[in-house]
């Protein structure tokens, strides 16, 4: 049986976790560079705000309605997410992390098990131990589990396909809300008279294959309770890491950045070679424990990319920003490591509502060109000019950034 577990308004929940003064009050979280609203809690939704609202348009209204505004604090979100996944792993034999706030949990098909009971236990454990509310959809396929999760949001947090007449539920769900049915597929289906998830389930397989390709065919099978969506193949690397110890200790930020950039190049090359995209980047920096000549420092930071990507400049920007964050003057560093995490296939992916498709295609074309030049003329025949991209992400606007409550001693919450 498959559980789809999704943290409710995840970024907003994280922001309110260490702000007792904000309980029940409206919260919105802005995208990178404080551009648009990417997350908001129930109170903010009630106040009339929506995902995607441009910050410059709503800033006055937020002040007037006493809405607390946050810049994206990916350090915090990544840490809370890792804690939640640790609990999933404790309670379920097989966990697939799908995104920063969504996971699939695979339970064996036991005889007469109480899956809903297990789901409530899971939900209560995450709420008690981490403080984040999650909802659980239970079904025999991933697509149905995602549908159930949506229904769970208004059904006490847990919804099992087994306990209801699923066809009646599917009849009420617009076809565009089904996982994997994007804007263009939705248009195609509506022309065929397929408007609800139930219509799609009843769509003959050959029709689905003709109009929606093989992925659409799988969606139809999954709605019928037949597991068809391949999981991310296990043989692929789930994370990629590149690192080397330096021959001589390195003290300056510029030299470290150059090294980190080289490892990022290497990691992205391997990422692209296996046709994956990364969701998170982490950077690890350390002095030599056998070096008596200076103070010791060993630390790591991680951050989520704005969207899953294999685009070198984006990953490089994030890695450089993390490194600058980690770096302390006056240390003799011996090792830097760049790690790409949360890998997924470049083809089957969750479409991001805010991804700019045209710009994305440009990036893809650029990287394909980049790859083929390096294949032809040797690795590093062409690379990024580090100093040009150098300071871009650092100057990112994050005017409403909350402290790193859980990962930085200077940011931990106060108690009285």
């Amino acid at each position, binding site marked *: 049986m498959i559980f789809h577990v999704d943290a409710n308004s995840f970024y907003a929940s994280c922001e309110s976790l260490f702000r*007792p*003064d904000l*309980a029940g009050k409206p919260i919105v979280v802005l995208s990178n560079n404080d551009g648009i609203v990417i997350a908001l809690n129930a109170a903010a939704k009630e106040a009339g705000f929506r995902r995607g609202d441009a910050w410059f348009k709503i800033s006055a209204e937020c002040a007037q309605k006493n809405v607390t505004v946050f810049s994206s604090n990916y350090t915090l979100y990544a840490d809370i997410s*890792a*804690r*939640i996944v*640790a*609990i999933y792993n404790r309670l379920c034999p097989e966990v697939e992390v799908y995104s920063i706030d969504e996971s699939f949990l695979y339970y064996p098909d036991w005889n007469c098990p109480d899956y809903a009971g297990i789901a409530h236990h899971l939900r209560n454990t995450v709420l*008690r*131990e*981490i*403080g984040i509310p999650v909802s659980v959809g239970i079904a025999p396929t991933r697509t149905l589990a995602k549908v159930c999760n949506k229904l769970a949001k208004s059904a006490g947090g847990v919804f099992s396909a087994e306990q209801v007449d699923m066809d009646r539920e599917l009849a009420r769900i617009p076809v565009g809300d089904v996982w994997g049915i994007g804007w263009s597929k939705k248009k195609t289906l509506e022309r065929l008279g397929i408007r609800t998830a139930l219509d799609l389930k009843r769509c003959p397989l050959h029709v689905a294959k003709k109009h929606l390709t093989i992925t659409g065919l799988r969606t139809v099978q999954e709605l019928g309770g037949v597991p068809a969506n391949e999981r991310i193949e296990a043989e692929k690397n789930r994370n990629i890491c590149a690192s080397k110890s330096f021959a001589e200790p390195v003290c300056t930020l510029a030299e470290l950045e150059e090294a980190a950039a080289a490892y990022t190049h290497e990691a992205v090359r391997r990422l692209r070679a296996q046709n994956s995209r990364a969701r998170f980047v982490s950077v690890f920096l350390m002095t030599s424990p056998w070096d008596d000549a200076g103070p010791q420092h060993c630390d790591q930071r991680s951050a989520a990319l704005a969207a899953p990507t294999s685009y070198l400049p984006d990953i490089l920007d994030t890695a450089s920003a993390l490194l600058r964050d980690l770096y302390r003057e006056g240390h003799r560093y011996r090792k830097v490591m760049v790690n790409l995490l949360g890998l997924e296939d470049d083809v089957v992916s969750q479409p991001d509502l805010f991804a700019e498709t045209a710009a994305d295609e440009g990036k893809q074309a650029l990287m394909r060109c980049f790859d083929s030049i390096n294949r032809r003329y040797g690795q590093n025949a062409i690379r990024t000019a580090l100093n040009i991209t150098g300071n871009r992400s650092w100057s990112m606007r994050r005017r409403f950034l909350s402290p790193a*409550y*859980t990962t930085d*001693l200077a940011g*931990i*919450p*106060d*108690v*009285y």
Partner: protein
Amino acid sequence: MYMAEETGFPSPARGYEAATIDLNALLVHNAPATFYMRMRGSQLMYRGIFPEDLLVVDRSKPPVPGCIVVVRQDDEFVCRELVRDGDRFVFSDGTGNLSPVTEDTELFGTVTGVVRKL
């Protein structure tokens, strides 16, 4: 495990090597549920907790009478001793002031350790 290459007599310490002492092993029992907080108040000095102490807070540990808990009170987190008073639970601040645990009391976690740098 290899030690440095030995040419003379074998080290008498062989087989007795141990990792360094890890304070996390002592203080953290359930890492995902453990958070750190900074004590700013002086109410718990009678229990040996001083202002500026670092509190290790475990959200998974159920509170029992006599333990120190972090709760949300009005607009802030407060740290108090949980005590039994007859057949009800109350918070004590060591001066004899007791405040009741109500339905609105929201527990953040149980303090399982205090770290202080001297």
